[in-house]
């Protein structure tokens, strides 16, 4: 067993873990942070994507011990008081159906926009190539990411413009 200290969504957890334990299993089974799902066993689908020190990482392809000392943001910790613009845009543009790929897709998009704040549709498509969705055909995901990019650049969004943003309805 190995001792790890990992900060997840703002809380630091210290645990003894098997060296072979995958980060995603540590999050889900060890810490009960089940917002991050598992979609495959070959790191193809990206459903388990989280941010590790700000960068998107497929948490099924990292061992928990490799994340020792890291700061992790999952879909459960992305909203900071209010939803992140990417979360809002996915709802506004119907960028999700069953929602299973959504945690990973949203976090991959957040990282994509950090690296490229003004992407073209084609750049969004290639940037999200590692995250598979079987429901949407990606059209509305691309629309959502482009809309979120605009909001993050301060071009489109005004506070309150997204009336249903809080999920209150």
């Amino acid at each position: 067993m190995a001792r790890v200290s990992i900060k997840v969504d703002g809380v630091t957890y210290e645990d003894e873990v098997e060296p072979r334990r995958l980060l995603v299993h540590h999050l889900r089974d060890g810490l009960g942070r089940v917002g991050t799902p598992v979609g495959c066993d070959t790191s193809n689908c990206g459903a388990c994507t989280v941010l590790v020190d700000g960068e998107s990482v497929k948490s099924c392809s990292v061992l928990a011990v490799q994340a020792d000392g890291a700061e992790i943001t999952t879909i459960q910790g992305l909203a900071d008081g209010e939803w992140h613009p990417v979360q809002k845009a996915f709802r506004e543009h119907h960028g999700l159906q069953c929602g299973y790929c959504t945690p990973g897709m949203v976090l991959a998009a957040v990282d994509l926009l950090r690296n490229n704040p003004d992407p073209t549709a084609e750049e969004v498509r290639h940037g999200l190539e590692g995250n598979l969705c079987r429901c949407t055909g990606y059209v509305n995901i691309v629309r959502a990411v482009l809309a979120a990019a605009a909001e993050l650049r301060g071009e489109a969004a005004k506070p309150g413009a997204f009336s249903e943003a809080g999920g209150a309805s």
Partner: protein
Amino acid sequence: MTEEIDAGLVAEEIAEAGALAGPDGTRELGRGRRRKEDAKLLTGQTTWTDNITLPGMLHLAILRSPMAHARVTGVDVSAALERPGVIAAFSGADLADSWGSLPCAWPVTADMVQPAHPPIAAEEVRHVGDAVAVVVARDRYAAADALEAIDVDYEPLPPVLDMEAALQDGAPLVHSDAGTNRCYLWPLETGDYAAAREAAEVVVRRRFVHQRLIPNAMEPRAVVVAPIAAADEYTLYSSTQVPHILRVMLAIVTGIPEQKIRVIAPDVGGGFGSKLDVYAEEVIALVVAKRIGRPVKWTESRSEGYQATIHGRDVIQDVEIAAMRDGTLRGLKVDLFADMGAYLQLVTPGIPVLGAFMYPGIYKMDAYKLDITGVFTTKTPTDAYRGAGRPEATFAIERIMDELAVELGRDPIDLRRQNWIKHEEFPYTTAGGLTYDSGNYDAATGKATALFDYDGLRREQAERRDRKDPVQLGIGVSTYTEMCGLAPSRVLGSLSYGAGGWEAAGVRMLPTGRVEVVTGTSPHGQGHATAWSQIAADALGVPFEDVEVIHGDTDSSPKGMDTYGSRSLVIGGIAVHLACGKVIDKARRVAAHLLEAAEQDLEFAKGTFTVKGSPEATKTIQEVALATFAAHNLPEGMEPTLDSEAVLDPDNFSYPHGTHLCAVEVDTETGGTRIRSYVAVDDVGKVINPLIVEGQVHGGLAQGIGQALFEEAVYDEDGNLTTGTMVDYLVPSAADLPEFVTDRTETPATSNPLGVKGVGEAGTIAATPAVVNAIVDALRPYGVTEVPMPCTPERVWRTLQEQGGLR
């Protein structure tokens, strides 16, 4: 931002819909409501089955056959039991007394071969992935480790992999006691095909092959069982599309009384037909939980699911179309071979039968003949995958119409228009024996060709052909229709299906005027909570936000036939509408009593009863709900409730249609293809939520295009699934797919009061032939008449070498 998305037709409807408008004056139907489902999905608060952890819960892992076909001569689990953290381990023989065969609910013919299908094989394994033992351990790692300690002795038997070879005399048998690999022969003939062919001047024949596909719902399957051993009661959570069907079947298979089993489909992450089934693991988990008296969980890994979850398609079609020189169709004949795989799952044999009536498509003809042969092989069983039989039918007719057009020197749309059913001819009974209630193929095609710039692209195609451009342009047409909304029960019964096709809904008026809608549909991404809320809000005149939709739990929504076959809206959604009507009828009685008026003197609009001619004499439906709850002053003899239920069993299927046009650039030097534009104009009748409809079309297109270009489950000569992981099976990514142009025409269905049609499968059904027609069209100048799916660069290149003389 605006609430409605841009849809001209929808806006008109809203304008003319005053009478049924909601409390703010805007009609709910046709409104692009953002989904109620999204908040939890976007913040990680979803209850996937694998997220459920119960006190004392143990984990199951299943040992699977590495061989396609073998006799099992010994299973020794004793070493596994010695492993740390292992609580129990069972072979198939250990549990054989605890269950019967997994069910097949669709014996399509009286003499169909229906082999036993034990949840864990005891004597013989018949495909790679067939279960041979199960381990119960403290956690998923310990369970997986213990599988390695199980010792199984196999005596190899020959694999059966090729359908046509399997039907030859002397072929090795998948089920030796059946004496044949033929599962069934299902014939259909309307009119006199031989006479039609005799009268025809042109006959075109083609063989089309639908490769085997893996559905790939993003959520892997999972099961959790919570037993109360002392009471012999069980709650089973499953990632299923069919909690109600599952409950009945679990009772039949295990002998546990039905009323002792509660099935919950919590949040379910996609299905596409693959979760329309009763799986071995659901039975194993239930039986093991009963045996050891503790909660258990099983979650498949993706690669395990590729072997243990059903596959789709895998059909060979020999298609013959007979026509006159002037283009008039005479008849169509199809010989179809369908791979069942090793066993019959819930509706495996019925899948080709679901497509059987759709081969004539939207065209008029004198005669139609079809023979379906179901064949066993040593592969994972096939079953429903998005479209289920109808994509195969649509592909066959839409591909052969293009081939006939070439034979006759006609434009493919022109030939189609000559033969399709005209708008004024509806209702129309087709050569397939179905009565299409409504449709307008001219309108959809006109809109699609304009959006696509059909004539401009044809000109560009001609130019590229003239200059022998190495990158050729092809144009693919698909003027599809489909039958969906799987009902009516009488028809399903006449096809030997084991159950009905009705759907149930309940509407409960709460004392505070809020509304609970209970539905028998079981959504897994479709947005029923949003759409059913719109239907109820529209009918009752209450705010959208005041409606809560309850589903997917046999305790709280006890009656239902679940979600598949694009049936939920046209049956389940309409049942909600009808149940609301019953609530209003009861409320009218109470309101009349309270207002001291005659019932017939009350008008109901925007959620309020008003006495005709006395606009100040009103009762809102919320006031009536509270008065009914208090029950102090109700009409004589009236039960103190407005709650109502409706069970709808419609008279007919639903027939969405549309015109899809696809332009593909094909690089003749590399075989590479690029979809340059894709236009889909669908007619799904009236629309409840255009945002959701567009999303369904997008996703359907992606799966149809996936079949055309990317996806194939491949077995090697020993029967190993070589596309065993997502590394090898290409689920298209965002980078693989184009932007889609979608639009709609609205020809209301006449078979239900809201005029709606199904939409879940339409995109998938339409897209595959549109894409393949485009690729073949691009390569016509080289003499190519068919490109096998998936049309990968290698396949296209090889086809050009072999058919196109480019050696």
